[in-house]
């Protein structure tokens, strides 16, 4: 189907075609006219290097750049009378050319070749972004493992000291019980002798 579309921009008498964006369905049915501007002043043009200068950048951009798809509102504005240059579609291949017109006679004087095909971007969905962090960092592994070992050692030490304290107190309470029994046995004898 692509080869059947005419890529001519003029009719038989070299008059340029006036097809608009809407008429050609955005360029699908044939070439459309995106803009019309005067031949720029080549006698003393602004220097390209001046693009860094804040005061001169507007002039430089106007002289050297034409932006296809610059006007986002002309398609929806019923009063718009000039040439409409609406934004291009995504994920589509386009070609461009410049045409030189004689405005008094209204015929084409010269034209460039069609440019190489340029494909517009296809946007990726943010849903598809993979947020999985991957491997654990070394820092986290060191901290977790060493702290786990330390806590284990602390708990073991705590149990050991508590159990040694409990067993120590059992020994000491057994000693005090046997001491009290011997003192009770020795007491009654002095009473018998006095009577």
């Amino acid at each position, binding site marked *: 189907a692509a080869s059947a579309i005419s890529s001519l921009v003029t009719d038989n008498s070299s008059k340029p075609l006036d097809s608009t964006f809407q008429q050609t369905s955005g360029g699908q049915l044939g070439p459309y006219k995106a803009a019309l501007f005067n031949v720029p002043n080549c006698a003393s043009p602004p220097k390209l290097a001046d693009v*860094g200068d804040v005061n001169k950048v507007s002039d430089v951009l106007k002289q050297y750049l034409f932006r296809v798809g610059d006007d986002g509102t002309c398609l929806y504005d019923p009063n718009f009378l000039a040439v409409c240059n609406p934004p291009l579609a995504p994920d589509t291949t386009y070609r461009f050319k410049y045409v030189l017109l004689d405005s008094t006679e209204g015929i084409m004087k010269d034209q460039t070749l069609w440019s190489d095909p340029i494909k517009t971007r296809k946007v990726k969905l943010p849903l598809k972004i993979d*947020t999985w962090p991957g491997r654990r960092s070394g820092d986290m592994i060191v901290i977790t493992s060493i702290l786990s070992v*330390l806590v284990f050692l602390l*708990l073991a030490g705590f149990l050991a000291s508590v159990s040694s304290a409990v067993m120590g107190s059992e020994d000491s309470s057994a000693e005090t019980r046997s001491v009290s029994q011997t003192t009770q046995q020795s007491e009654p004898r002095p009473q018998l002798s006095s009577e």
Partner: protein
Amino acid sequence: MAKSDDTCILQGPLVFGNVVIGMCGIALTAECIFFVSDPHGLYPLLEATENDDIYAAAWIGIFVGFALFALSILGIVGVIKSNRTLLLVYIILMLITYAFEMASCITAATHRDFLTPNLFLKQMLERYQKSETVNNNDKWMTEGVTKTWDKLMLQNQCCGVHGPSDWQEYMSAFRITHSDADFPWPHNCCVMDAQGSPVNLDGCKLGVPGYYNSNGCYDAISGPMNTHAWGVAWFGFAILCWTFCVLFGTMFYWSRIEY
């Protein structure tokens, strides 16, 4: 209560150990209060990812630091008086505090790993200037993310997470309401003049060097967050290593005190 020679020698180091724990506790509290106060204003980004556990770790750090300070005083009193009850209470409460601080360190270290560039990229694309919010929670998070990103881009002269191309490569909530022709990237990515408006809007939209911010904001986000997470995790780890030695010595001291 009789003391053997073992315990006399241990008293000095244990008191010193507890003094250090007390000072470190105060330092930990101060550090964690600083982090929780969010001086860089990045909390809304974490809140919207629903992964703000490095802040939970800092909150635990505040209370643990204060507990360490209080317990160190108890420990000093218990060691000097060689009181078995006081020291037993000290050991048990210290073990509990130890467990909490361990949780804080591990949480901070683990959750830092989740804060990858892709996480912030996805969140920025899905929430920045999102126009139709479903409920109040969604609205709150969207406003937080939008304000934070606007401030980030203006203050750090950056754009997007990796660069302005993020806005071109991916579909976004911003793109739904702002056409590609007028806003290839948000206007906050443009170099601003003193009044806060772009120096040259066409230059910014066309990507002319010097009129837009070409570097990404990831460094400005990850720098403070790394400081926060590593500050909580590693300082806490250092305190816990020191506390381990002091606690072990205290348990040994306690078991050697005779009734």
